[in-house]
């Protein structure tokens, strides 16, 4: 099944690859190298002196029960964000795909939230759920539910998950819709003629044929939940209450920019890099096998 394109000689492939190599080197390898270098030192904030500590920063971090707890928080948070944003997006895409009239309008409206920056999304959701003036928390109060994400850890987690997923649904929706439209109509029609109802068609034909899209989105969304949700967490909860929403990347920020502890912050970046690397390898090794291209 595998197709291979082979080049004669070295020069042309090298030239073709060069732009990507340069971009990766400048924006990835150099900063990552710096992070690894700094993670072996304890520098002072102003960069006046540095002390070599070897793996001391890593020992310090991994010996800290609160840092280890942050892994579990991150797993729960990323899992929920991925499931919620992909699930909702798939649901909406399936509905939009079946529309005949006005589908363009629906699509445009569904794509809009993607244009909202995470920090702004955070502020929007915070406004709705503000314990004092929030519209939603007020109605919940009328219904007899006392919403207080400032002290309730579950509510805080729920709120940051929803706020992080919201804008992401649009992005996922775009890909799912494109994926759905790429499925040949003839296959679905054949199944329909054979008497397969909508749900059966979705389960046995549409979903398997959509798997390359789903797999791609899975990888991209987990990376999103790991790194780009910082703005949402910062504006809504600042990692609280207690440490309920302190995900790994938020702790990188907090140690680096609140504590000015650049050694620990760099070491955490390296750990994050390794974790996400492992996750991606796992995904490609085990999940990709079940993907039909």
């Amino acid at each position, binding site marked *: 099944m595998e197709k291979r394109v082979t080049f004669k000689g070295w020069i042309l492939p090298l030239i073709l690859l060069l732009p990507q190599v340069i971009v990766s080197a400048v924006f990835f390898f150099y900063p990552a190298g710096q992070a690894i270098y700094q993670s072996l030192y304890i520098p*002072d*904030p*102003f960069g006046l002196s540095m*002390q070599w500590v070897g793996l001391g920063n890593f020992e310090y971090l991994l010996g800290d029960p609160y840092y280890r707890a942050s892994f579990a928080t991150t797993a729960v948070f990323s899992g929920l964000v991925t499931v919620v944003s992909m699930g909702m997006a798939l649901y909406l895409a399936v509905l939009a795909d079946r529309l005949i009239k006005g589908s363009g309008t629906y699509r445009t409206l569904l794509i809009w939230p993607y244009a909202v920056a995470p920090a702004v999304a955070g502020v929007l959701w915070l406004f709705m759920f503000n*314990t004092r003036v929030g519209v939603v928390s007020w109605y919940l109060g009328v219904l007899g539910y006392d919403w207080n994400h400032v002290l309730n850890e579950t509510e805080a987690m729920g709120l940051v998950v929803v706020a992080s997923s919201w804008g992401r649904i649009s992005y996922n929706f775009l890909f799912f819709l494109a994926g759905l439209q790429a499925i040949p109509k003839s296959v679905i029609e054949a199944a329909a003629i054979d008497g397969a109802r909508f749900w059966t068609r979705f389960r046995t034909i549409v979903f398997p044929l959509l798997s390359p899209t789903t797999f791609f989105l899975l990888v991209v969304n987990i990376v999103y939940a790991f790194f780009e949700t910082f703005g949402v967490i910062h504006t809504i909860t600042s990692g609280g209450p207690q440490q309920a929403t302190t995900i790994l990347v938020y702790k990188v920020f907090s140690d680096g920019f609140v*504590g000015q*502890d650049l*050694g620990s912050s760099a070491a955490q970046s390296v750990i994050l890099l390794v974790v996400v690397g492992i996750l991606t390898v796992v995904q490609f090794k085990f999940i990709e096998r079940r993907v039909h291209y």
Partner: protein
Amino acid sequence: MKIKTFLGAMASALALSTGANAQTEIQWWHAFTGANGDRLAAQAELFNQSQGDYTVVASHKGNYSETLNAGIAAFRAGEQPHILMVFEVGTATMMAAKGAIKPVYEVMNGAGIDWDPNAYIGAVKGYYTSPEGDMLSMPYNSSTPVLWVNRDKLREAGIDPDVDLSTWEKVDGVLTQLKDGGVKCPLVTAWQSWIHLENLSAYHNVPFATKENGFAGLDTELALNGPVQVAHIAKMGEWAKDGKFIYTGRRNEGGANFRAGECALFTESSAGYGGIKAEATFDFGIRPLPYWDSVEGAPQNTIIGGASLWVLAGHTDEEYKGVAAFLKFLSSPEVQAKWHQDSGYLPITGAASDLTREQGFYDANPGTDISVIQMTANEPTGNSKGLRLGSFDQIRGIIDEELEAVWAGDKTAQEALDSAKTRGDALLRRFEQANG
């Protein structure tokens, strides 16, 4: 002939432009927005108009933490401002950065300016002075916590608005009355760690940290889990459980609740004055921060919060002369008295306080001198000079987390404060290692 006139014009134009360039620019990075941002800009403007040699350019760089980070990043890039506003919890970080700062006393002495460090109020100056007695940064905005009272809410619950609220024992009784009187928000606070642990400790003359709260060495350890602090936090935990104390967040979110007239009592900085005066549509009063009558030696004095101005290293002598002139201008009684009266921040010199009294401000606005009295009532002790702890912004974050566990009923006060000590000490050791 024509060419000569032209050349002459050119020369005079050149002379004019160099004349304009001779104004030395002083960069001042600060963290103020809103009304205080306008007041700060007005100070810079007034200084610029008062003389022709220097121009102070004030730039807003975000909140306190962001301003500090902007200053640090700029220093690493060799583009640091002359003056950087740093909040009080960043003091230890700045003090430890010996090569990055130019102590204020050196700036003043180097510029040959007539300047008396003893003109500043002791409790303010002490926070920013080295163990050798040298002033390292210039106090700018300093405040201290007081108790704000919504007198209408007290009346609503059938309580005399002039009821004695001097001790927490008495406040406890009033909170019960308020609760029974149907008030939904009897007590709310801003800056919980600053008011209910840091100031609580100083006010009751017990250590917040060993080594004179960090003044005497980097090998300091937190001592915030002592009996006085545990008893106070335990009581507040009870109030939280009974709905007498409403928790609104880690910063000053509670201010919105109080200014909207929802809450009866509010522990907040004296600098809340500007906002409360502008927004409150109810009869409000200012009282001294309550203390526990049962603790011997209380009330001692409260400590300050706010920010000071640090002069950064790496500029020319001429520029430092301008910095010195500006800092002297900021400390003058007229500028300070106006700042104190408009914003509610403390006057940083005795002269400014005297001038304010002479102008009749305290008589016209009862309660506005409470913060000054509270800070200067007693000679500060080793426990009440202030705090000098590394990574303190982050330690406050830890304290916030642990206090939230108490308010939510997940931990007892003792457990939470013990845990805060253990976790905070780990950060203090990191700081000691990085700066030792």
